[in-house]
Every structure is written in C-alpha cells, then in structure tokens.
C-alpha cells in the first residue's frame, strides 16, 4: 500500500511517503521516506523475552539500528537508545509483562533528517503491527544554518549547517516527548525551532492518519 503526501507538499517541508507491510514476516513493517532520507522499520512483538531481559511488570523494548553498510557504531547506538526510550513511553508495555518488543530499523538513505525519519518510521510500524499504544508520536527535524536561518529542509552543503534539532511530539496534547540536538545554538533559537517544529508536527500526524486510512480501506 503506497501512500504519498501530495497534499502536504509545500516548499519548506520535506515530502513524506510510506509503504505498509514492506516485510512479510514481521508483525508490522513500513518503508518510510522523509524528503530524501529513507528508513525501513519493523516491529516484532510481544514476543518471548530472553531470560536476562525479562522485566516482571512490563515488556522490555529492544531497538536494533542497522546502518547502510558495515557494523553499527557509536552513533548508531545513540540512535538506538533515542528510539528505544520513545517506544518505551509510547507503547503500552505494562499490558505485556515478561515479554519483549523488538524494533528493527534499517537505514536505506541518509540526507540529514535521519533521526526524525527513523522515529516516524518506527511510529508507523507500531501502528501497522497493532500493538497497544498510549499515544502516537511524530518527529520533526529542523536545521540551523550559519546565517541563523531555520529550515526543515537540510541544506545541500553540509558545512553551512550549524546545528540540527529534532523534536518528538505526541498526538494527544501536542506535548514534547523527546528532543535531540547536535551543534551550537542559543536558547532563543531553540525556542523558535521548537514552535516551528510543533506546527510542522501537525502535518506529520495528518499524514500518519491519512496513510493509515488509505491502508485500512479494503
């Protein structure tokens, strides 16, 4: 099921596209692209947990991030922990005690907004698998250029980007549930970026809903 976000295209926001059920054997999977970054995410769960990972009152969430080539490095471990922490609060893990939820993220293409792309892909994969969730999450990344301009589209020249800010919001209250930043910026710039991303996150949730609706129509 291919879904394109044609109605959400505007010049300053990345185009979103997704395809549900990209993998046949996982419980939920999605091929998701945000601008020119592409991620394949899949969810298995709840499945049997290994003995040392069992938590008595909730499911343990594990995230595996695979880069395009080679073995996962330190950067990838950081991304894994960001995604795992978000999943732990969004998925209703207390409903599945003594089990494990496995999140697999495969990087396909990187054009700057990789983290927000991965988070959105995991969110869609969770919804595809039908696992119980407290809320839906959506991420937006924002780039601060050397001349102080904020934009949601990464600049083609990497040297002109001074900082990258990623914010994750929930769909119920619009509250922020995670923030990840790289580079130098002032507190003022952070606040402006936060408001900008909050506005943009509504488009992400709109996209999630329309794409699920399109996939649900049988």
């Amino acid at each position, binding site marked *: 099921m291919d879904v394109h976000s044609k109605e959400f295209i505007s010049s300053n926001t990345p185009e979103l596209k997704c395809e549900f059920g990209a993998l046949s054997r996982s419980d939920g999977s999605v091929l998701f692209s945000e601008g020119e970054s592409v991620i394949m995410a899949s969810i298995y769960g709840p*499945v*049997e947990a290994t003995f040392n990972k069992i938590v008595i009152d909730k499911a343990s969430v594990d995230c595996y991030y695979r880069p395009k080539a080679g073995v996962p490095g330190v950067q990838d471990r950081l991304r894994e922990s960001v995604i795992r922490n978000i999943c732990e609060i969004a998925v209703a893990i207390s409903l599945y005690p*003594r089990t494990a939820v496995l999140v697999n993220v495969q990087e396909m293409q990187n054009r700057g907004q990789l983290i927000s792309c991965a988070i959105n892909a995991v969110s869609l994969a969770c919804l595809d698998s*039908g696992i119980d969730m407290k809320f*839906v999450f959506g991420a937006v990344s924002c780039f601060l250029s050397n001349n102080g301009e904020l934009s949601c589209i990464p600049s083609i020249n990497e040297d002109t980007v001074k900082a990258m800010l990623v914010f994750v919001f929930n769909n119920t209250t619009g509250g922020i549930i995670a923030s990840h930043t790289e580079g130098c910026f002032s507190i003022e710039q952070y606040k402006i970026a936060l408001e900008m991303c909050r506005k943009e996150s509504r488009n992400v949730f709109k996209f999630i809903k329309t794409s699920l609706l399109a996939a649900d129509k*049988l």
Partner: protein
Amino acid sequence: MVASTDLGFFLPGEVIKDIESKDKYTIIGPGLRRNEEDPNSLVATQAGRLTFRAPNTYWIESRRNRYIPKKGDLVVGVVTKKSGDILKVDIGCAEFAWLSLLAFEGSTKKMKPNVNVGDLIYAKLLNAHKEMEPELVCVDQYYKSGRLGVLPNEGVLINITLRLTHTLLNAENPLLRTMAKKFPYEIVIGVNGKVWIKANQAKDVLTLCKAFEAAELESEKSIIEACRQHK
C-alpha cells in the same frame, strides 16, 4: 444477530466521546481503554475503526497480527516440547502454552494419549492471564473432548491473518460453504491464525490457500458478492 455500526477511524491516544451505551454501562473490547480523566469517555490504544454493537459494546477493528491469548479461545497449536505429563504448545503468542496430558478425554495416570513433538492440537484456552503462561485443555466442562484433541497427520497447517479468521468464523460468511460445494474438505480454524486443512487432493488444499490469500485483501461485502457469483 445485532448489526454493528462503524463509528470512524481512530488513532491511539484519541479520546472517544458521546458514548451511547445503555445505563452508562459499557463493555470495551480490544483496542480501547477507559479514560481516567473523564469517566464518560474512552481512549483508543490501537489504530482502526471503532465499532459499536447495541446495547453497550465497543471495540476497535485493528490490523493486529500477533495473537494475544484470551480465555475461552479455540486455538490450533504445534507441540514443541514434551516433558513428563506436560506438553508445551506453540500457539503463536509470546510464550508457549501449557497443556497437561491429563487434560484429554478419558486420560488417566496410566492411560495417556499418544502425543508426540510436532503434532497439531486443537484446544481451548482455560487460562490466559498476562502474568502467567497460557493453559490449554482438550476437554469441555463435561470432560468430553467434543472436537478438541490431536489433529490427524494427513492435514496441512497454514497461517492466515487474525482478521481473516474472524471473517471465516462468522457463521454468516459464505466463503467456506461455497468452497465446500466444489470439493469436500475438513478445516479447523484457530482464532490464533493457524488453520489446519485436510482434503482429498493436494490441489484442493492449494485452492483453499489461494482463496484465503485473495480473501485477505478483500472486504466482507466483496467476498459475499464473489461467492454469490460462484453459486
């Protein structure tokens, strides 16, 4: 049967107001939880269509594919381990289900049924608490097996989506009856998505598999329409 009504598409976290249940007493099914802040509303926990059946039942028709055991479900499972009087059965959920050899009809300490690893079992969930292993039995409340028990070796096991099992088990759905007019077959559908089929020829089994594959992508209305054409 009371018809159920579709009340629109919901995402996890969205609040459902205007509960129409009788006497403010609501039964909630999968995909919903009660709202702590406002007692007269519900919160969705799965993405899907909210469905209501009069007088007071609500649930979400979701695209879930991992089976979550529920008490009283009839399931098909594969025996994966045998130790003493206990069988461990894979029913597709997070843990192996537990089945005692004494839970078969007419079984005693001295006379146990002959069950081996790899056999298929059609059983009922006696116990499905989320903190415990699910427990299966092959007898009903009168200690009779009914149709439960070990399935014969001649059949074939296939996996289908949970949504399709609900469609097929709906007594009003004509798909299985229409197929039965073409050729004879035996079928056991577990609500965990495992289906056992036995037919005279391998061709007939494949025809059934193809039909299920096609039905997975179709709505209930178009299945009924397709069956009517083949009458």
